[in-house]
């Protein structure tokens, strides 16, 4: 598989890219810090015993980098079978309420800019005759919840967008995979008290890779979050107003 990967430098993206490299997939790294991308490229190439991993500049805050980055990846990989997006930012509801500029930036990165990146990725994949677009959204987008109102809203928008893409393009061979992680211990959640069923990036990566291989449109990870969110979705508003989850 030839994969363009936005967000492989850290967290779940790092873990997923490693699994792909170890099984011999070819990867092109997209990201905003070229020196840091080089370090991740070295890591992946040693782990996979594969030739040097190319990397390309792409910043989710700079929409004009999206299409050129995907084209450059396509060229470096001599084609394209999959695009993976794990990149995003997070801030707590308190932090976002206290800082309007931060809130605006988060919504822009996690929603509108991610959508525009996916539009560019979709176009490239359709030109290749289909492929996989795997994007990390969140369980935070499943229900309006007190601790993640703004972040959750951006992820909810992203989830709906991805669902629509899947409905429209599956028949053309574009498989869109929406990943909905629960709480996972990465630097994104560092300093937050982990709830029960908090996961590790490696476990999430294994589930996501299997979803990619099967073409499963939606994957919850770690697994228990599927059930947890089914319950949360079923709770009446009167209860949601009362609990702090």
């Amino acid at each position, binding site marked *: 598989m030839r994969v363009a990967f936005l967000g492989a*430098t*850290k*967290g779940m993206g*790092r873990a997923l890219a490693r699994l792909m490299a170890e099984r011999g997939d070819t990867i092109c790294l997209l990201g905003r810090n070229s020196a*840091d991308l080089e*370090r*991740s490229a*070295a*890591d992946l190439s*040693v*782990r996979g*015993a594969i030739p040097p991993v190319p990397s390309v500049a792409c910043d989710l805050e700079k929409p004009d980098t999206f299409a050129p980055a995907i084209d450059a990846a396509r060229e470096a990989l001599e084609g394209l079978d999959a695009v993976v997006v794990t990149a995003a930012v997070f801030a*707590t509801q308190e932090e976002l309420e206290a800082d309007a500029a931060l809130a605006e930036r988060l919504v822009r990165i996690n929603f509108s800019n991610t959508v525009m990146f996916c539009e560019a990725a979709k176009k490239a994949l359709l030109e290749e005759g289909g492929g996989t677009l795997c994007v990390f959204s969140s369980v935070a987008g499943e229900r309006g919840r007190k601790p993640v109102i703004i972040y959750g809203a951006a992820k909810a928008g992203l989830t709906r967008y991805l669902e629509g893409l899947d409905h429209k393009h599956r028949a053309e061979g574009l498989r869109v995979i929406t990943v909905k992680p629960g709480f996972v211990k*990465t*630097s994104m959640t*560092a*300093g*937050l*008290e982990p709830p029960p069923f908090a996961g590790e990036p490696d476990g999430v990566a294994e589930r996501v890779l299997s979803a990619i291989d099967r073409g499963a449109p939606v994957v919850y990870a770690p697994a228990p979050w599927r059930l947890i969110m089914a319950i949360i979705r079923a709770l009446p508003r009167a209860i949601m107003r009362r609990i702090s989850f």
Partner: protein
Amino acid sequence: MREPPLSTLSGWGRHSAPGRERVGEDLERISADVNLSRGLGRSYGDASLPPDDEPNVLNTTFADRILGFDEVTGLFRAESGLALSELNRLLMPRGYFSPVSPGTKFVTLGGMVAADVHGKNQHKDGNFGDHVTKLKMRVGDGRVVECSPEQHPDLFRATIGGMGLTGHILEVEFGMHRIPSQWIWQESRRIQNIDEFQDALEESALEWPYTMGWIDCLARGKNMGRGILMTGRWAEADQAPSRAPKRGFQPTLRFDWPSWVLSGLTIRLFNELYYRKQWRRRSSGIVSHESFYYPLDAIRSWNRMYGRRGFTQYQCVLPREAGRSSARRVLDVLTTRGGASFLCVIKDFGRESRGILSFPRPGITLALDIAVRDDTQDLVDALNEQVLQEGGRIYLAKDSFTRREHFEAMEGPRLDEFRAIRDRWDPNRRFRSAQSVRLLGD
């Protein structure tokens, strides 16, 4: 960056202190204002715990990228939070193994350098630090520098075995060893007493790259120090099964055992059975490297076996000059005080390492796992007094009970040299741990 909540950090022996762990992939960025690094927390005592007045520590385990590996020369470089377990998983199938490995694979490269770990091949290949070619560090004045035997050699030698007190190790470069297979040709042999043990270790050192022994600490008199000697070497490709060793079921201890479980009686029973298991005088065969190197890793969180109060490991080295009988005198202190050690390991050391405060020196090392009880401090004091008389010293990676005066007396001029380098690189004593405050005064 979000400040993590104050929680309880503990060493492997469950000795604990209030602290906060900062995590992140970019050690260079997040190490600027933290005063101690810790890896996987496998040091037994308080080496990886913060001092009372400064609860923040850096947890390096997110910084685990491999930065380079030369498949021809074996030269390897990675960020300091990379775990040995991961290194083994990736490179053993390609015919490379760490030049030195401790008895658990759940340690980081940073921890292996900071404790200058030794393994079953100490008599032949020295310590981990002997194979390190370069370190990248953040030092006391905030700079990021590289050090090696040529570049800032004082910093390099003080960092190897320096228990994190010279700065944050960001990257480690070292030479990997070639191995012919992932299997070990192991020979085990029953030993009648401590004197025979030391002869047997000395003999096998000439013939075997890997040696260590298990001692029944409760046996007294003429049986004192009876046990089993294990020796091994990598199996050649044509002796070994062609498949890679399977990873078996790995149970996890999910609760603390009550303290009576490991009483003198059960320990006696275990030791008796273990000794009897080796019913033949000698046996040999092919075993997986995991069962040879990391028998304790087979049970996750086995430290919970010691209950809430935890345990300590007392590890000392007795110099060759102290003579054969020194080991018997130290074991005597343990048995006459009724100290029961569940696990007792014996191993001979070859040369001293290049690290200024590194543990090994030519002689014999004993490591005793001791459940913490009300009298543990007295027992450790008594052991330390005996070790001092023998001219020996203790291993900081295991210690949580030694008194400052004992430590200073054991280390003498080595400690002066270490302090002088610390004065040069960290005059304001930014880098401190609970252990350094206890043993060095700062």
